[in-house]
């Protein structure tokens, strides 16, 4: 009987569970003892307490009188902001570099390769610090701000650019935009159905552009030009007005985008090379021009290879945004750390970290899995 694999399996699992339970019990016991000694009450009640620290970069109203819970929300939003901006930029840059690595142009190919090999092999934290302390900190002070086109300025306090001020009646523009997007979607659907049925094509792209530009413009004109632009004004000590992107955000955003783009480029290259050469030959045999063939034949097949690893790169970028703490950008991790230092609620803070990051991971994977099934090979 002791040689029966099933019996062995059951015995092994029972032993494992017993060991695990004993281990957890030991850990919990020690933790309770330690917490009792240092007079820390457990539970999430502390979240309602007054935070007492200020946060420089925030997307919602917050002051030092706000609660710890609100501070954490500010942190989550900051993490989301830098991750979203980084994902968009890294995707665009990554696709460009990835296609560049397959270019017929020798110079472009070599440059793209150099980019990938350079950024893939350097720690992201180093890139962040390089931007923060090596480049952005050296920019001139407010008084000698570098003027950039469109009334924007660059100095060691960040990047200042004009801001739209929405006045009375501006909702018409937004309404126009929403209607335009909905209409374009409808037009695209109808056009596809008509092409399936009759083979006639409809200029979907042109119509959509006309709709998306035209309708908000119409709203803008009808409601009597309700938008003004607030330019940053140069004062002696500070720039007032406009929007400001702080150097912390800029360095984190640039570093994460550049770093992740190198990986995305490799994924894109692998995806395009994964499409068999016969496909290219087949579309030219059918008489499709190369850009049409790329769009209709190669890219849809390449996307199937690209999407799964792309998802994990997006998740990596989001997780790497926690490096913000090294330069003082108030993301979830940095704010959680401050709260931990003030209250000593180590377990609760770590639980919050785990929950937030895990839910970001899960939401991203669900979205990308949905997109993946949509793109996947439909075998009929």
């Amino acid at each position, binding site marked *: 009987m002791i040689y029966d694999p099933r019996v062995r399996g059951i015995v092994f699992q029972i032993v494992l569970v017993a060991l695990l339970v004993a281990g957890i019990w030991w850990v919990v016991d020690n933790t309770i003892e*330690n917490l009792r000694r240092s007079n820390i009450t457990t539970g999430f009640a502390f979240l309602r307490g007054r935070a007492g620290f200020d946060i420089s970069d925030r997307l919602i109203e917050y002051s030092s009188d706000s609660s710890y819970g609100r501070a954490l929300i500010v942190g989550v939003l900051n993490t989301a902001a830098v991750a979203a901006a980084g994902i968009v930029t890294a995707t665009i840059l990554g696709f460009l570099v990835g296609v560049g690595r397959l270019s017929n142009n020798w*110079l*472009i190919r070599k440059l793209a390769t150099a980019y990938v090999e350079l950024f893939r*092999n350097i*720690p992201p934290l*180093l890139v962040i610090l390089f931007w923060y*302390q090596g480049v952005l900190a050296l920019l001139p002070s407010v008084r000698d701000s570098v003027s950039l086109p469109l009334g924007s300025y660059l100095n060691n306090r960040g990047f200042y650019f004009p801001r739209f001020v929405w006045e009375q009646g501006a909702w018409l523009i937004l309404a126009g935009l929403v209607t335009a997007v909905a209409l374009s979607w409808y037009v695209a659907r109808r056009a596809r159905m008509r092409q399936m049925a009759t083979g006639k094509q409809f200029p979907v792209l042109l119509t959509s552009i006309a709709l998306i530009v035209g309708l908000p413009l119409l709203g803008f004109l009808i409601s009597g030009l309700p938008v003004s632009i607030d330019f940053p004004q140069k004062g002696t000590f500070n720039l007032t007005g406009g929007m400001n992107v702080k150097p912390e955000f800029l360095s984190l955003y640039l570093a994460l985008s550049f770093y992740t783009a190198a990986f995305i480029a490799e994924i894109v290259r692998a995806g395009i090379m994964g499409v068999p050469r016969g496909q290219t030959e087949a579309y030219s045999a059918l008489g499709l021009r190369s850009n049409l063939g790329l769009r209709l034949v190669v890219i849809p097949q390449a996307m199937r290879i690209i999407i799964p690893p792309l998802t994990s790169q997006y998740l990596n970028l989001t997780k790497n945004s926690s490096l913000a703490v090294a330069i003082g950008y108030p993301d979830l991790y940095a704010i959680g*750390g401050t709260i931990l230092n003030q209250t000593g609620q180590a377990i609760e803070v*770590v639980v919050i970290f785990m929950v937030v990051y895990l839910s970001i991971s899960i939401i991203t994977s669900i979205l990308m899995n949905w997109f993946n099934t949509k793109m996947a090979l439909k075998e009929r």
Partner: protein
Amino acid sequence: MQEHDMSWVRTEMALAQAAPRSQVGFGAWVRKNLFSTPFDAALSLLAILALAWSVPHILNWLFLDAVWTGADRTACLTTEQGGQLPAGWSGACWPFVSGRFGQFMFGRYPLEERWRVVLTGILFIALLAPLLIPKVPYKGLNAILFFGVFPFVAFFLLVGGVFGLRYVETPLWGGLMVTLVISYVGIVVSLPLGILLAMGRRSKMPIVKLLSVIFIEAVRGVPLVTVLFMASFMLPLFVPPGMTFDKLLRALIGVALFASAYMAEVVRGGLQAIPKGQYEGADSLGLGYWQKMGFIIMPQALKLVIPGIVNTFIGMFKDTTLVLIISMFDLLGVVKQNISGDPTWATPQTAKTGYVFAAAIFWVFCFGMSRYSQYMERRLDTGHKR
């Protein structure tokens, strides 16, 4: 026999003509590779312009305009900042790197004890190099020495406290040495642990499988910073009062656990790629589970995922920089500390110089690893690939 008039047949070979001028030589290469279409030409011109603008800048900054000697910050300051250099000067400040080189390598390890670190490094290279070169014999003995004996020798050499060696506490460690210690331990621990976890995840025992999945997914879902944070703040809470952990040890535990979760997923990919026939073949030979895994499945699976394993190693090597956040000083940590906390070398160019130096070191290590893995991949390729 009738005579034929064969005058229309050539009696001598025609001279070979040179290839058309448009197909050979430098000009043709340029036309083909840089200017084949108008769009290509535009791209090439843009790239050439960008290079012509940036490369001289970079070379000037790195070498021609750089300062090479000096005792302190005044060597790298312009006249308006209180130094000797012309206004508007910008260049690397290399004396900062050479002046702090010892710190960058060893941290605050006592000067008179640094030979121990050097000796460990020499041992490391002496054991690693023959392991990496395929032609050198005695691989088994070498591997036992490198993975089984070397860690203990290194531990006693670096920590000391025995055989008359002075005890050097870990807060004094720093620099490249800490980076290498963390990566070595991470690699040595994560590979076997990762293999075990991957086998656990594919196990038929439900509880083992569940526990492996929970561990892997929980660790992979959070950033390494959070894992390190847990290791440094929560580990002390988990053990009986009075029992303390060394800070470096906590970081090591964090990095090793984190890397093994990623390693497990890489190995699982390899296990999934092994055809079912191999498992059944091993079963039909009457091999037990561990024999089957050890002799049949793992050698094939691991060979398949060498690129993934090395990628995980490279990722881990880069991730060692994050210990900076729990205030430990690896190479990047020491460089940063010297940049922001040391007035002797506080100049506008110091930060850039220091980070370029650190980047170069990290780059050489990571690039070397990736090139070696490509070489290994080609060598082990038995031609099963399509």
